[in-house]
Structures are given as C-alpha cells and as structure tokens.
C-alpha cells in the first residue's frame, strides 16, 4: 500500500513539473508584460531595464528553474498587475471558486441521477424524449451563451436575481463565504446552474446508459422472478451497481469544474481564481498565470491520487497485483 502511494506521489510530482515546464515554454509567446506595466510614457531604456530586473531576458529554462526553486519554498512571487503576492491573491479567491464548484456539482449530481433514473425507467415516455433533447441543447450551447441568456431572463427582464458578482460575504477567518447571506445565496444560483449544465447532462446520460444496461442483466431478471417489488429491484439492486462508474466520473469532473470555471466566472464576474487568471492573461501577468496552472495541475493530481487510492481499497485485484510485486 505504502509503496503504491509513494509511486503515485512520485508520478504526481513529475506531472506537475511537466505542466510548469510547458507553461513556461508557452509564456514566451503570450506577449510582453513590460509594455503593459510601463505604459506609454516610457523610454526603450526603461523597458530594457525592467525586463532585466524581472529576469525576463533569461532563457526560459533558467526562469523555469528559478520558478520551481521559489515555488518549493512557497514563494510564487508578486503579481505584475496587482503588485500583491500571488499566493495571497489565489488564497483570497479560492473560496469563491470552491463554493461555486460545490454548488454546481451538487446540482449536477442530484438532478443528473434523478433524471437519469427517470429516463431509464421510462425509456418510451414522451417526457423522456423532451429531457433527452433538452440535455442535448445543454451540452451543445456554449457556456457564455447560456450565462448571458440566464442573466437577461432572470436579472434584466424578471429582475429576480442579481446580474453579477457574489453578493455579500461573511468572513470566517481565512474563508470568505457567500452561503450565509441572502444576497450571497441569490448570487450563486445563476452561475451554479450555468456551470452545472454540462456535468448534469453527462451524469444523466451516464446513469441512464448504465441503468439500462443493468436492467437487462440476468440478476435483475431473477429478482423479478423472485417477485421482488419494482422499487426494491430498481433502487436496491440496479441503482447500486450503476453508481460505481458514476462516482468515478463525478470525482474527476469535480476537478474540471474547479479548474475550468473560467468562462462562467468571467460572464458572472464571479471573483474566483478563474477570473483572476483571465485578467492576468490579458496583461501577461506571468507569476499569476504560472501559479494558477500549477494549482490546476495540483487539483487534478490530488483528485486522481484519491481516486486511485480508493480503487486500491475497493478493488481486491489491484491489491493482489501489488502484493505479487507486479
């Protein structure tokens, strides 16, 4: 077990180094931070001097190694744009992103499972057709369009929900939450729905497909033959067996919800790490971009690690393989 985790951890470190390395290679092509930092009233000599001071003249691998060296000590530098420490900026904004991800994952999971079961049990009902078609729209419309559409309907026309932002927040030590105020709760509704639509569709279709599959298997037929109630068969036997892949996918999707809420955050001016990243890209704020990408890699790596460990515990075949020194 320990050897397994150690191996996994080692692989995770390699993944994160690779992400940082690729990021630094790409940063050379995203533009010049110096001209947006200095503005119009500056001479070329000023530009050269600042570039030298920031170490931007160094070859990218030197920049990369100094980044890794500093990152290992918890130093991510100072944002070119906002002149504040990057780690502080990210920590300040992380609660907003995590709360949004949590809310949208909950919506996606609950509605996805319920609708998935419903459409699997009534494959020929008219309402199933409607739900399946609507879900297609959900995956095919771009997120920003859905977001803007929801804003226009619920904020501009009906004036029932706020059009942007996070509302009032309550400070709980280092965590700023919007879940404890009315305006905070009202503010999270639209972005959470927008962000959840894709995952919702995915989970729903997955549950439906798995459920249909399971319902055709022999043990369900035998259960029916035993005269068990429909309810006991559907929820006690069929659903349990469909949930294994659903949990895996949901776990992995949670990572992408946290990491790629960028568009939703931008459309709703949600003050999370995604909108921080977008603002940083526009002015080539390299320290923030680098730290954000490493953070995203970390989220994925951690979630994958947890999933792997769970498999290890759940699946005896993996355990045996490890024992035999595979």
């Amino acid at each position: 077990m320990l050897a397994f985790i150690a191996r996994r951890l080692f692989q995770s470190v390699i993944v994160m180094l690779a992400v940082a390395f690729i990021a630094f290679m790409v940063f050379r092509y995203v533009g010049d931070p110096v001209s947006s930092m200095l503005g119009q009233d500056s001479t070329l000599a000023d530009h050269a001097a600042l570039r030298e001071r920031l170490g931007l003249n160094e070859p990218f691998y030197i920049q990369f190694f100094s980044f890794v060296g500093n990152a290992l000590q918890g130093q991510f530098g100072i944002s070119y744009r906002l002149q504040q420490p990057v780690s502080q900026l990210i920590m300040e904004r992380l609660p907003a992103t995590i709360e949004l991800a949590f809310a949208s994952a909950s919506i996606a999971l609950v509605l996805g499972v319920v609708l998935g079961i419903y459409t699997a049990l009534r494959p020929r009902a008219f309402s199933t057709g409607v739900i399946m078609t609507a879900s297609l729209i959900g995956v095919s419309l771009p997120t920003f369009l859905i977001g803007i559409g929801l804003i226009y309907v619920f904020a501009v026309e009906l004036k029932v929900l706020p059009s942007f932002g996070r509302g009032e927040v309550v400070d709980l030590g280092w965590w700023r939450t919007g879940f404890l105020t009315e305006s905070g709760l009202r503010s999270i509704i639209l972005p959470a729905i927008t962000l959840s639509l894709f995952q919702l569709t995915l989970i729903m279709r997955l549950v439906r497909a798995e459920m249909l599959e399971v319902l055709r298997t022999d043990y369900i037929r035998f259960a029916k033959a035993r005269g068990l109630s429909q309810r006991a068969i559907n929820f006690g036997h069929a659903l349990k067996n469909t949930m294994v892949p659903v949990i895996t996918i949901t776990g992995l999707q949670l990572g992408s919800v946290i990491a790629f809420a960028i568009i939703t955050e931008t459309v709703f001016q949600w003050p999370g790490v995604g909108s921080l990243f977008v603002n940083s890209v526009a002015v080539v704020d390299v320290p923030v971009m680098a730290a954000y990408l490493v953070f995203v890699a970390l989220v994925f790596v951690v979630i994958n690690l947890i999933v792997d460990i769970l498999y290890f515990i759940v699946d005896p075949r993996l355990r045996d393989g490890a024992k035999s020194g595979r």
Partner: protein
Amino acid sequence: MHTSLTRIAAVLIASTMLAGVAQAETVRWARSSDSLTLDPHSQNQGVTHTFAHHIYETLMWRDTEGTLIPRLATEWYVKEDDPTVWVFKLREGVKFHDGADFTAEDVVFSLDRARSEGSNLKQLHAEVAEVRAVDDYTVEVQMVGPSPLYPNNVTNTFIMDKTWSETNNVEEVQDFAAGESNYAVLNTNGTGPYMLTSREVDVRSVLSVFDGWWGEAPAVTEIVYLPIADNATRIAALLSGDVDIVQDVPVQDIERLQNSAGFKVETGPENRVIYFGYRFGDEPLRSSNITDSNPFDNPLVREAMELALDRDAIQQVVMRGNSIPTGVATPPFVNGWTEELDQYPAPDVERAKELLAEAGYPDGFSVTLDTPNNRYVNDEAISTAYVGMLGQIGIDVTLASRPIAEHSPIILGDETDFYLLGWGVPTFDSAYIFNDLVHTKTDTHGTYNVGGYSNPELDEKIISLGTETDLDARDATIAEIWEVVKADRVLLPVHNQTLAYAMREDITLPVHPENQPNMTTVVFAE
C-alpha cells in the same frame, strides 16, 4: 377617521421627504477593469489614475473641456528672473484624510517620489532638477532648462503625506521585482473628496465622502466601484438596476441603451487618435512581394493609400457614428490642432490606382498589416475595413491581428511594416506627439516612431519646442512641423475616438476627454 388617516399619511410623506434630503447618495459605478494599485506613483495608467483622483489630488487637473484648472495649487507661474524655475502657490487649509495639514513639504516629497527610479511617472518629470519648498505654501521646481509646458505634466502626479509615508515605510515606490507588496498598494491617505472604506481587488471598492474636504460637498456621498470585465454582463448589470453608471460602453450597445426607458448615454470626444503607420526607408519590406524596394517610402504610394481610406465609411459602418474622422494625428484638444489640418481628402479609388501606377506599382503589392484586437474601440474591425479598401486599389493586405500584449512588443521592437495604433496626448500639447511619433528614433525620443521616419530638420525643431519660452514663436514652430508631417504623410490618421458613459436617467456625469470621470461632477435630477 378618514381625515386622521390622511393626516398621518401626510406626516409620513413629509418625514420621508425630509429624510430624503439628508440621505446619502450612493453611486454604483462599473467599468471593465479595476485600478491596478493604490500606490499613486506606481502605474501610469488611465484606469488607475481615474480611481486615484477620487482619493488623492494633484496640483492641477483638467476639467471636462480639457482646460488646466487649479486644484492643490492655486497659482503657477515661471519665476520672474529665472525661466528655468516654476513656482506653485499652494491651497491653504487643506487636510489629509488622517487629519494632517497639507503643506509644501508634502509636495516636495511627492514630486521627488514621482520622479524616483521606481516610479512609472518619472518620464513626465524628466526635466526636473530639484524641487524645493520656499515657505509652507510655495514650492519651486528647478528645471534642467526652460520648460514652458511643465505644468501640463503634473495632472496625474498625486500628492501624498510625507509623514504618513515615512511612518508606513512607503517612501519608495512599489518595486515589481522585490517580491513583496508595500503598504501604499492597499492603503491610502490623500486630500481628495473621498476616503477608502473597503477594497477587494477586482471585486469592489467602497469610497465614502471626506467631510474635511476643502471643496464644495459633492452630491455623491458614497461610491461603490465595481469592475465587470464582460461587456454584455456590464450592460446587463445597468439594465437590471444592479449598477448606476457604466463606463466603457461597447459601441454596439449605445443605440439600444439610448432607446431603453430609464437610461441615457453621455457621449463626447476622447483625447485619443487612431492611425495607421508604415515603414520608411529604402530597405525592402519584410512582408511584401516587392523585394527590391520599399513601396511605402514613395510619397505617391502614401498618397494613394490615403485616397483609398474612406474615413466616413469607417465612421458610419464600423463605429456606428461613434468617432470623429480626422486628417491629422492629433485630437482637437491638443495645442497645435487646427481645423485646416483636420481636413481630409475625399476617397478616390481611380486617382489612387493612377498614383500607384505612376509610382511603379501598376499591379499593386502585398503587405501584412499588424493590428491589435482588444485595445481600441473596434480596432480589428477598422483594420479589416481598411484591408478591403486597399484591395480595391490593388494592394493585397494580409491582416495579422493580436491582443495588445502581443502587439506592443512588435511595435516597440520595430518588427512591423504596417500597423494600427492609437495615441493619447496627456500633456495636451503637440510636442508630446512629435517627441514619440515623429522624432528620429533614439534612446530618449521616437520610442513609438515605428516606421523609422527621420527628418533631421524636423528633429531640430522638435527639440527646440522643449525649451522655447516665447509661446507664440513656439506655436509657430508647431504649425511648421505639422505642415511637414501632414505633407509627408508620416502617419495616416483615421479618427479620434469618442467615449460613451451609460447611466440611470436621473444621473448626469459629463464625459471627460481623458476618460477620467470624477464622481464629484455627478448631478442628480430633481
């Protein structure tokens, strides 16, 4: 029973009306991005200055007409017996937000800080040799030589309290490379009409009125500043009543907002000209099929290119009427602008083709146009339109469109043959344009002279503008320079941008030519 109810109602109404008079007026103000820092000398950037003008004050500033008006300085003049010294008389009785008195030593400290190594404003004070306090309310600025227009350079140089800065250890400007944030980036102590109440970067900043301000109490007593990056969301926020004033209104939304009940749009000219530039010199262009000469170096080709440019069509179609076409690369506020210079020729495709043939390019030529796509209003669309117009006279243009962060290095590194750029003139004087766009490129001048235009005779005249104290003679030199610049078609101006602010119908906020609206100028309708 009936009458007593009426009486109660009357009393209630009267009391709410009374409360209404005394009530604080909050304005929720949204624009596309946040102020970058609260350190007033760290960034030379419009959004940051606009926000800072509410908290800090400058010696002088500009009203909505672009005229220089007194602020912390009540008078300014060149010292009688020494043309190299500017004297500023300071306003008395001004207090900082922490209660400290405003005196000459604060001005000396702030000007010295603004021209220090780490400051992004230092270029504006490059001619300053020494700043000294004569008495509590008089400051003398010793220049390197005669600098007749120095007062134009101080309109964004904010005055900090010397004692406060020393106490909080912020005598130095924030250093990007230092790896830590200084106190002044997040905390303020100005003399301005508003005090910072709270600030969450990129989310919201709240300012409340400073009771000890020397000016007349503003109608707006609280400002909630809300950066909203997405255009559609920003407009939706106004329409849904979540904000009161929106700056940075996209061109395509202006008409719709004007027609929406309960909202209005204030428009006005901005101090920013949009122009095309091209490479001068004999060397062949990098992106052209003509490999033995540089077509742009031929005046006939440049004339043909101007005749191909249909400025009115760009104004009507691309800008939907929201621009002011111009024939000279300077906004009308700027000293040196004349109506005559502003004239531009009517487009003439036939004549343009003849000129190209005459110049030796009867089949035209090919070239790449570099354009930003997120910096100016509809910048990419302007370039696209011009590409079509040049196609009509046989010039085959490939458009290379990039975000400004990638466009800037190409411009500053001289890696372009043909480009679009915009230029604002914060000093409101033509010399600012000549120094950076027309003077031969050197370490200190011609930073944005991307095309490499070089005219030694003009260079001499441009340098003389810096020290000429006879303002009439100086204006005459400016006129001479413009004549040559226009005749040589050093730049190909398209239009001056206009600004649009959208707001609730009962609010009036005039457009400021530098796009620096101030909430003290807000008027509420009865």
